[in-house]
């Protein structure tokens, strides 16, 4: 039981994540991926005659069950598997982030940046709303995210996925090194 309670090391979590690939294929020929759920939600709720959202989403509804499952999994981990705790990151990262203005290190995400009260401040708007927008816009434009491209795509030896993953990383480095220091100081 102790193992379930402790945070899982990479060599346990990574291989387990990798096994979701064959599990989905064997369960029903489904390629691992989650960002398309955003597209299905658009297709269901507000297709607005946009060609990207005109398709039979019912054929893809497994992906919405998968997304709902992730929410459920998050709930189970937080409620029963001690999923809420300070993250034991490299002290150098902590020092850097403190210098850049992050104050709250008690949970999985910095509560001083991500909270409802901040939503109507410039900082909160940039982190929660603009950040989310870029994730949704970018993943659809790239036709996949870390799951669909970086794991499923590279594991099935598809070079466009490798290219997309390299671009995810470049974007992330630019953001972390050149943009975030300014955003955190706002």
């Amino acid at each position, binding site marked *: 039981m102790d193992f*379930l309670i402790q945070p*899982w090391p*990479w060599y*346990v*979590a*990574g291989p387990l994540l990798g*096994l979701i690939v*064959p*599990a989905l*294929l064997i*369960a029903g*020929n489904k390629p691992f991926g*989650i*960002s398309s*759920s955003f597209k299905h*939600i*658009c297709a269901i709720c507000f297709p*607005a005659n*946009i060609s990207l959202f005109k398709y039979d989403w019912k054929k893809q509804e497994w992906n919405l*069950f*998968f997304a709902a*499952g*992730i929410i*459920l999994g*998050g*709930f189970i*981990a*937080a409620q029963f598997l001690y999923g809420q705790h300070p993250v034991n*990151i*490299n002290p150098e*990262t902590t020092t*850097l*982030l403190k210098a850049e203005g992050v104050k709250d290190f008690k949970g*999985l*995400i*910095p509560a001083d940046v*991500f909270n*409802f009260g901040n*939503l109507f401040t410039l900082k909160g708007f940039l982190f*929660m709303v603009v*950040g*989310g927008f*870029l*994730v949704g816009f*970018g993943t*659809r434009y*790239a*036709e996949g995210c*870390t799951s669909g491209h*970086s*794991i*499923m795509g590279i*594991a*099935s030896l598809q070079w466009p996925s490798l*290219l997309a993953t390299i671009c995810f*990383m470049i*974007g992330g*480095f630019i*953001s972390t*090194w050149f943009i975030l220091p300014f955003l955190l100081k706002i």
Partner: protein
Amino acid sequence: MKNIKFLFLGALFGIILIKSEVVSWFRIQEMFRLQAFHMYGIIGSAIVVGMISILIIKRFNIKTINGQEIVIPKKEFHWGNIYGGLIFGLGWAITGACPGPLFALLGSGFYVISITLMSAIVGTWVYGLVKQKLPL
């Protein structure tokens, strides 16, 4: 209820995301600052295990539970892989979460992430709206 198995696999995915701290904004910071191996180890070993699994499926011609041939959709290159990839990368470092973790964080009780999630859906919708005008 043929979709229940996907709900179950999603739950497993969500538990792994939380327990491995992949959902943590701090872990993503550490990764992009090259100050820990954790995230690289997770994504790297997931790729290796996924790759070996697919090779085994092909080698032994393993079928789905319904007896179907397993087919992996081919991903065709287009410029969106690059431009979209860069845009997603920018957002990933800011939110500290890719799409899977957004769902997991919401489930684990960070209700404020519902805003980020909704914004991601709006982002997808706006992409659909302007798609024709973008280089592909």
